[in-house]
């Protein structure tokens, strides 16, 4: 097998696509169920959950597209920058909807009050960290998208620049994961 050669036959691709489709639909049902929860904030919770899961899924996929960039291999630039641009928009949706649901989190008798009364460190340490770490992925993705569009096809002449874009995507994903897991823990602890 030659290094950097990535090829699947037709059957292999079909299996992978079906697997991804099933996994994504099942995963999205997790936050989509929020829409039916018995709370006045079901819409906000559902929208934030769906945009957060989508951001994690797309961000995770992008880590695989970032590795060839880091290694200085040739990449399919057109497709890559469309994906990064899409990830930027999804992350913006995640941040905006996060702000929206955060209002209720801080509201009277909301999750914050409940947590502070019983397990204060989940708010004082975890949430205080999460509210900021979750703001990082959107601007990081935007800067990666900017670099991909700005330098364009000439990226292939500059491995150092390609590597930096790859690192930016990987870093963005790690903040996504930190924010996502912290968000899950808090939502599980006390739902809005």
């Amino acid at each position: 097998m030659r290094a950097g050669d990535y090829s699947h036959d037709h059957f292999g691709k079909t299996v992978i696509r079906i697997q991804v489709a099933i996994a994504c639909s099942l995963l999205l049902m997790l936050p989509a169920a929020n829409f039916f929860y018995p709370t006045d904030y079901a819409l906000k919770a559902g929208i934030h959950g769906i945009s957060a899961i989508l951001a994690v899924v797309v961000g995770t996929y992008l880590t695989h597209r970032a590795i060839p960039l880091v290694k200085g291999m040739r990449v399919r630039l057109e497709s890559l920058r469309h994906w990064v641009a899409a990830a930027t928009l999804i992350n913006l949706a995640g941040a905006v909807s996060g702000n929206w649901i955060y209002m209720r989190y801080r509201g009277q008798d909301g999750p914050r009050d409940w947590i502070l009364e019983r397990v204060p460190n989940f708010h004082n340490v975890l949430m205080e960290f999460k509210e900021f770490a979750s703001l990082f992925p959107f601007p990081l993705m935007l800067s990666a998208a900017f670099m991909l569009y700005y330098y364009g096809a000439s990226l292939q002449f500059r491995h150092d620049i390609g590597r930096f874009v790859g690192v930016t995507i990987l870093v963005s994903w790690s903040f996504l994961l930190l924010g996502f897991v912290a968000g899950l823990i808090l939502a599980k602890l006390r739902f809005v």
Partner: protein
Amino acid sequence: MQEDTDPQKLYSGPLVAASLSLLLAFLTLMVSHHISRLTRELDNIVHAYGHWIPGSTGSGPDGSIGSYSGKETLALGVWLSSWLIFHFLWRRQELSVRAWTRIFVIGLLAITLGFFHPLSDPVVLFIAGLFGIA
């Protein structure tokens, strides 16, 4: 966007501008966050920058994001203005991407730890003490 120049001649300046402005924005978030936690008055000052954001004020069950809105506004302002300034300063500037990659990642890591209160609070209180606040 570089059609008018030789495609082989690339400058790393815009890359450093785009990512340095991010570090400055995250740093702004961190500093304004710690400042807002010191006293009620400081919190109000930070909060005032965010009043334009819907849901930045108010109480009751629906709540509000409070001074978080001001921290976001300050960070947005620093991010976009410093990006613009550095971009035009360094459009034709070659900077070492190798060195910058290292500084960028270490800087991000340091700022991230700054949001972890058990680590950052002693430092913040020490600095605030020097200024005689809190």
